[in-house]
């Protein structure tokens, strides 16, 4: 008997009586002003947040960031958003090996939706070209449309259910750790800063 068969047989033999799945309707707390709540949550998880009216303002906001001014290797996957000051950006499609991104300074990525309750921004894997881009970069800017701000995780998954399924992640703030004496240190392995721009 294969291990698969043996395990499944043991699970069937030892299974408790059937229990129905709970109904998840009604879960989640809504906010009077989800965008203000999102901004609050982003700061709480160690990020920064700003509201911008359009793509030009987004570019200007990024150009004003000290980490953008110092950045040499930049990727922007948000069409129309540039780091400003005529800084060139890297074409990810021309990069064949993600190891070449080890010295990436700044990545500007689109967020498909943002969750007000916990500052989690859903990044769709399809737009990334290389999965490493969001974690290997030193600094991160996420651009989310105001209409894509949802109240809570239940609403987020309801929205995501309609999409073609594929790799993606919720990202909430910069990389962090508190593994040394519970002291919070931002910038553990991934991005050292995370800026969320709310568009519109």
């Amino acid at each position: 008997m294969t291990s698969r068969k043996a395990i499944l047989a043991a699970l069937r033999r030892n299974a408790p009586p059937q229990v129905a799945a709970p109904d998840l309707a009604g879960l989640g707390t809504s906010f009077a002003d989800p965008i203000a709540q999102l901004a609050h949550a982003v700061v709480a998880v160690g990020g920064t947040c700003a509201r911008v009216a359009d793509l030009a303002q987004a570019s200007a906001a990024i150009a004003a960031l000290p980490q953008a001014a110092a950045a040499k290797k930049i990727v922007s996957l948000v069409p129309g958003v540039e780091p400003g000051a005529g800084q060139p950006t890297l074409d990810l499609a021309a990069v064949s090996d993600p190891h070449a991104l080890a010295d990436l300074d700044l990545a500007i990525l689109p967020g498909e939706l943002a969750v007000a309750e916990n500052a989690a921004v859903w990044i769709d894997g399809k737009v990334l070209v290389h999965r490493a881009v969001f974690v290997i970069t030193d600094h991160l800017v996420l651009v989310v449309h105001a209409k894509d701000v949802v109240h809570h995780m239940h609403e987020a998954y309801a929205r995501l259910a309609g999409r073609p399924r594929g790799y993606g992640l919720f990202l909430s703030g910069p990389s962090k750790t508190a593994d040394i004496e519970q002291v919070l240190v931002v910038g553990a392995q991934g991005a050292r800063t995370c800026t969320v721009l709310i568009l519109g």
Partner: protein
Amino acid sequence: MLAVSDDKLPDAREEAEQVAGLLLSTTGRLQITSETGAATTKNALLAAKNDAVLHVAAHGTLGMDGAALELADRQVPALEISALQVAPALAVLSACDAAAERAERGPPTRHAHLVADLHRVCRRLGLRLGMASGHPEAAARFVADNERVHWHDQAVWWVRQKRDTAAAAVSDWEALREAAAGIKRHALSRLAEYLEQFEHNATALGAHVHWARDAAEHNAIVHRLLEDRGVTRLVKSKSMLTEECKLNPYLEARGIEVIDTDLGERIVQLAKEPPSHIVMPAIHRRKEEIGELFQIHLRTKPGAADPSYLTEAARHHLRDKFLAAGAGLTGVNFAVAETGAVVVCTNEGNADMGTSLPPLHIACMGLEKIIPRERDLGVFLRLLARSATGQPITTYTTHFFGPRAGGELHIVIVDNGRSQTLGREAVRDALACIRCGACMNTCPVYRRSGGHSYRYTVPGPIGSVLAPLRDPAAHASLAFASTLCGSCADVCPVRIDLHHQLLALRQDLGRSGHIAWHKRFLLGLLAVVFRWPALYRLSSYLARRLLPLVPRRLLYVRWNAWGRQRELPALPRHSFRAAYRRRRRDQS
């Protein structure tokens, strides 16, 4: 290499030479050097295998972390470190180290001989080597350092408080716990079906699904995957399952470099010890100790103990490891039957680094990680990080749907006793655990005895349930490492009735003879007394009359564990029955 500081420990060198002489014939590798300064000694300790450090700790005043040696470093008289204890202990350390190295390269028979010799030597020296003692003995060593216990207690309690703040800010918290518990109970009642569904969907996405009955099969599967692709460098993100299966030593013995990339896990890996907490693996270590460890392994500045500086050093160190790795291994927080996706949660981003650079991703999961629907994630993700650290969600919550283009994803589903636990009604809910660590953060026993005292991959209340289920003989004492206060059940995000499970386990262990004879005897006696009301009244009467007459030194003897730190409660003059009867009479 055996090093002792002879100026502070005058007799140590001689002692060490004696022991080493005995060992030399078998190992042929031991050298004795005499060096001034405890730093070398400490380095020898730090470099030694963790098990050996435990043995030293078992022997005497040396702390598990070398705390007593730190005293020596600060010129504190060696009064607490008797040479008699340090020298043989160090000899044992070095020999264990040599034995471990030998076991990886040389023929196993020589290792066995060496261990037998070690036992002989240790018996001669009155050392107990390799004897796994129970939780009370291990905890006694931890609590010997009062200041440290207090520090540990406060550090862990702070995390519990952060959890409380986060939970209180969520108005539907209790409804969420109810839903999470319900989803897990449902999933457990249909595990086989959901695993098949998961396998079907994951395979359709291009992932390879493997099944392992036990730890050995799991390790062999992972090794074969690496070997077939010529991978010699593996980066791992946190996985309690691979700790449970002891994957790291298995792979290392086969020539594969394994790097734990979670900062806390890397710290304990460098210190050659197991994690002491499932969420904060290095919570038992102070920043100064981590600084010393990093000074040896990462070449940080001597004396540096600033967490930001040390974390930055680890970032660079691990970055190099990520870039050089041939494969990345992750645990699995949730496996979604409906979609075939696996979800991995980290704060550091190490799982994402480890899976996005090398082409091979191996995800290892206990079979209980299955949840039925994608929308169930909404419930668990709202609970997990808040319960664990008080964060609203982990920084990275990555959903893997099959491999990336040009890469491979292998998912290893492991049983290792879980299917048997499912069949035990009183404890099956322990399989609902999502490994947040809240039960240990709140547990008065965990906070004051430290994670290592549990001697199991998962410590704290949930570990105390899981460990005796796995091996009753080895872990029976854990069922008693609880006051049954129920705080663990109160904070558990999936409402596992932990204290009731511990009680049920105690009964099982009692029936199967895994409880010390004196406990069995006393409980048997109590059972007789409780069965006969007249006998109960008589013994209660005698106790009230006679106990106050017994002299203190007869009452507070060694085996009166209660009286060690406390006074026995004052006995009332009258029994409750008598008081109640009088009250009734007075009222009428």
